[in-house]
């Protein structure tokens, strides 16, 4: 299992666009992926579950992946956080 922390740095936080981007990315991997806020773990493939994290700008989340492509999955997600989900 691979685990890394990521900072929500886009202004709008976990709004529809950011969450949709995450779900679409997670769907490309085989590994089970979760995002957690203070231990509250949510399914990376569920748009509704992720929105319930209510993660706004400045929130630190823990990304966990478990499966054959876990490293690649976590790297991809961390990059999405870093580029602020394409938000200008």
């Amino acid at each position: 299992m691979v685990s890394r922390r990521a900072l929500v740095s886009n202004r709008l936080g976990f709004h529809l666009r950011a969450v949709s981007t995450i779900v679409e990315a997670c769907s490309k991997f085989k590994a089970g992926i979760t995002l957690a806020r203070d231990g509250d773990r949510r399914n990376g493939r569920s748009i509704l579950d992720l929105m319930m994290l209510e993660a706004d700008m400045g929130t630190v989340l823990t990304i966990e992946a478990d499966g054959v492509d876990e490293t690649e999955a976590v790297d991809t997600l961390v990059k999405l956080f870093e580029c602020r989900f394409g938000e200008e």
Partner: protein
Amino acid sequence: MDGPAQPEPDQGQPAVEPVSEAGSRSRFLTGVVVSEGIAIGTAQVHSEKLRIPRYEVTELEVKLELAKFDRTLAVSREQLLGLKQQHLGSEQTVRILESQLLMLTDPLFMGDVIQRIRGERRNAESVVADVVDEFCRTFEAMEDPYMRERVADVQDVGYRILRNLMQKEYISLDKVGPNTVLVCHQLSPSEVAQLSAKKVAGLASEVGGVTSHAAILARGLGIPALVGVQDVCVRVNSGDRVILDCVNGRVHINPSQEEVVEYADVKKRLVVSRERLLAGEALEARTADGLDLWLRANISVPAEVDSIRAFGAQGVGLLRTEYLYLSSTTPPSEGGVLLHRHERPDPVHHGGGPHERAAGRGVRDAPGGGLAAHQDGRRCGQARPDRRVVLR
């Protein structure tokens, strides 16, 4: 969503009553006028109030329910993909539809439905309705107003699945043509904000009040509207010809040709009398003792600028910014709000006039509304920021 299945109300009346002589009356329903006018058009029933059948199923039927649910998801997906194809030009619409497509395949949402059809041995419709309700309650309890607004998206997807399960026609506001009289249980303010008088001839709803936001918006847009029309969604069918008499508070269903002619005449007279009132529009707002006043109107959506101009308003007294938020999926940027203020062909700018303070009203605490309002607050040096825009 609806409670237990209820028997359908009596629909035994003939669709059209025989016309014998001029002045004979077709069947009509009564309601409360919230926006005056006459609308003659074709009804489109946009009913949010679905009657959800609820029943238990046998072990064997569970498989049938699951198969039905599965097929419905495929149909819903096709519909959303089709809609997306139609809106490829609008990045924002595409994004909304894509997020709805993701909800359709959401493992939490769909997993819950499948598990409960199996576990509770209930029909798919009742389980979907319950699961959607539970998600909506969770979102409604959220602190962030943007997240609370997502209830509408979850409901939208939920209704789509339910309509497809029950094989009810899905009507989106996009498909509303001219001379349409929208008939609904309740219109949300953001739905009304999407409408324009050019697209919709009139509105009739089962619930709502004179001071509801939807009613205020309808008046602002100049769309005749009735609320409190009991069972209008059941009594009127999509495609029925209706006259919306928003003077006397009546909906005439499938009126006779005589009535249509009669009402077309009433409508014309209303327009004439309105024009006569507006003839004074160009006059200065000056009291008998020579005091000049600024005449300004309060608006909620940019489309209202046209109607307040027609009434001779010199400016905007109060801009309710919340509809700029409610009618969009992402919070509007400061630039976007400013764009709204400048989208008129001639410059729209704010400025002080005589008696500025007399008209001074605080901007309501719309979510994030302070953003755009601060500029004026600074200018006017007031504690409560003031939005004042002058049309020149």
